[in-house]
């Protein structure tokens, strides 16, 4: 096929690459956001577990 490539193929490829590139940038942005959400959720999970644990401790010592 490479022998029969029509002229101006590069421009067509470039145009579609621009489209792909913008989509990929968007994926990167969303990936950063998803990572942040995951981190924050982990933090909150640790906090809520600590809270449950300390509550359980308090109940155990008061008995």
């Amino acid at each position, binding site marked *: 096929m490479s022998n029969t490539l*029509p*002229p*101006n*193929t590069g*421009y*067509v490829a*470039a*145009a*579609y690459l*621009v*489209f792909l590139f*913008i989509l990929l940038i*968007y994926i990167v942005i*969303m990936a950063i*956001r998803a990572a942040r*959400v995951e981190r*924050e*959720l982990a933090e*909150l999970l640790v*906090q*809520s577990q600590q*809270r449950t644990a300390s509550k359980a401790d308090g109940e155990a010592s008061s008995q």
Partner: protein
Amino acid sequence: MPTTKSLYGRRLTGYAIATGIVLTAALALAFFYAPIEADQGFSQKIFYIHVPLAIVTLGGFVFGGIFGIQYLRSGDTRHDLRSYTAIHQGLIFCIGALITGSIWAKAAWGQWWVWDEPTLVSFLIVFLLYCTYQPLRFSIEDPERQARYAAVFAVVAGVFVPVNFIAVRLASPLIHPRVLGSSGGSLPNDMRLAFYSALLGITLLFITICKYEMASKHSRAQLAALRRSLIGEHDEPAPARSAAPRIAVK
């Protein structure tokens, strides 16, 4: 009772799947089914990505204005978020349309920028106007006022788009032999099929991204609300000033 239904992400999965199928099929049609155009040769294939991007951009801006009107009438912040998202994503699609248009101009006419081409020039002007949307939002601190002023901007700019197209078209010499009308009306049948499926695919992509964006913003707002209720209001720093709408979590 807090709602557990997904507010913004409804039918997001369906849209995402449809986007994947339609856009892939459209690109396949564009490259393997649609014939090579006699006049412009292979470079005409840019048409199948550039024109849908441009049409969807304008659609996004118009919907931004419509949601702006709805916000002004109802004061419902969900319309503000929709207006914001439509304009924001429209701006990104606009960049895509401008760059692919510029590449097409280079391929077809040998120049990166063609002032005689009214659609391209109109697009640049519209782009310049919508570029001010984010700075405008960012420079207003009060969320309610930010939403209201942004909605006024969205309506004015939405009306501006057709006026601008008329003005630029009148000012162009109209000498360019365009084999392909940008409306797709004069296309041969096999090209038309590829074009319309590409248009549908890009439209679906736009809707999917908008829904994804809103669902993501909403879930981050919910996360912040959860953090506040777990850790307590006072330990949290005040939310940073932002151009994005503030989302109320019920």
